[in-house]
């Protein structure tokens, strides 16, 4: 199984490349099968990332050393 450890953007780029390569149809069969398998796994992974994503919102404060410190954001009127 393909191991996926890439950002969404990297996965989409790889996916795009795989589909184009498959559509060209030049790769030998065993390579095509490997590409197909990888592509299918990437599609599943991207879909999963989207399905499971939960928005994270924080407010940034300057910490003790001036470095950013995240705090829960409570926007009010």
């Amino acid at each position, binding site marked *: 199984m393909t191991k996926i450890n890439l950002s969404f953007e990297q996965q*989409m780029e790889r996916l795009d490349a795989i589909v184009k390569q*498959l559509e060209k149809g030049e790769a030998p069969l065993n390579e095509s099968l490997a590409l197909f398998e990888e592509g*299918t796994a990437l599609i599943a992974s991207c879909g999963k990332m989207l399905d499971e994503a939960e*928005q994270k919102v*924080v407010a940034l404060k300057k910490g003790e050393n001036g470095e950013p410190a995240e705090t829960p954001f409570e926007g009010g009127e």
Partner: protein
Amino acid sequence: MENAVLSVTELNNHIKDLMDSDLLLMGLAVKGEISNYKLYPSGHHYFTLKDAESSIRCVMFKGNASKLRFTPENGMNVTAVGRVTVFPRDGGYQLYCTELLPEGMGDLHIAFEQLKDKLSKEGLFDASHKKPLPKYPKTIAIITSSAGAAVRDMIRILGKRWPLTKVVILPVRVQGAEAPPEIVGAIRYANRFKVGDLIITGRGGGSIEDLWAFNDERVVRAIYESEIPVISAVGHEPDITISDYVADLRAATPSNAAELAVPDMSEMLETLSSLEVRTLQAMHKKLSEKRARLSDISSRRVLQNPTAYIDQKRLELDSVQNTLISRYERLISLKKQKYIHYAASLDALSPLKVLGRGYSITTNENGTAVSSAEAAKVGDRLNVRLKSGALKCTVDEVILNR
């Protein structure tokens, strides 16, 4: 009637007193066109205000001039506010101007156009300086007021469209004198600590004064210098600020900024399913091509009848064998003919053949052929062989040839 004799200073001071006690001259506003405009190194501004027939000299001191939000230019129609008095040293009167208001357009508008013009000439709005926005931002830094609808709208729309992106709010004041340095500080801070890969800065709608921070030169320059791409999102659709010109992308409103910043998840899911279809189709095509090729190859005769090859080779072998045999036979018959020929030649040379023609062979008692008379003497016994039979003879006489 006797005229009083005054010194020049006394006269000028008298006129000055008269003018300074006039209520109108103490505080008035004059309309006119600026000409002979000069800014002295002292920081004071000198110019002439004129209309079709008259002109008056004007001065605006550094302190008042520093409050101008635009730079006065020759030809500009203005209303000058101030008082008129005499400068006793040269007896000239002039308008001491405390405020200058552009005619027609508001002073903010003038300031806007002037700053826009200046920064445009410096190249701050050049397309070549615009940075590309990340397609799928990981973290968006929003620099705006933490109160108000704008920030909530942005968070809501970002969450709905693309919840993968983390949203970091850097709260700042967005109006008032503190707003520009706070916005500048937040932009620089975001860059220094790389708190996001995209910045959205802006605010909700308001009056031109409310939005003014985004026309502040410091803010505009901070946006220009930001290494993180910036989307400006100020006010409503028709509101345009100088930040909009310098930003890498201008959004009409904060909500619009959120829409432009991230892709839409539902569209992306559609894209993914279309990619899935394309992947499957491509694979299907590949497999059916291979299958077609396979059936094409397997229909060839050699695979249909695997012994055909052997049969073929067997036939070839037979044919070679036949050739070999016939060649051999021909060779043998040739040799045979040659043998017969040689045998015939040999036969022709045989001495026995000569006897047939009436010659004979004479040998002595030792069996040695006698070919010369000298080899024999009278009384020798010789053997004479004829074609048929032989004679035993005795030599009677030896006749020697000369």
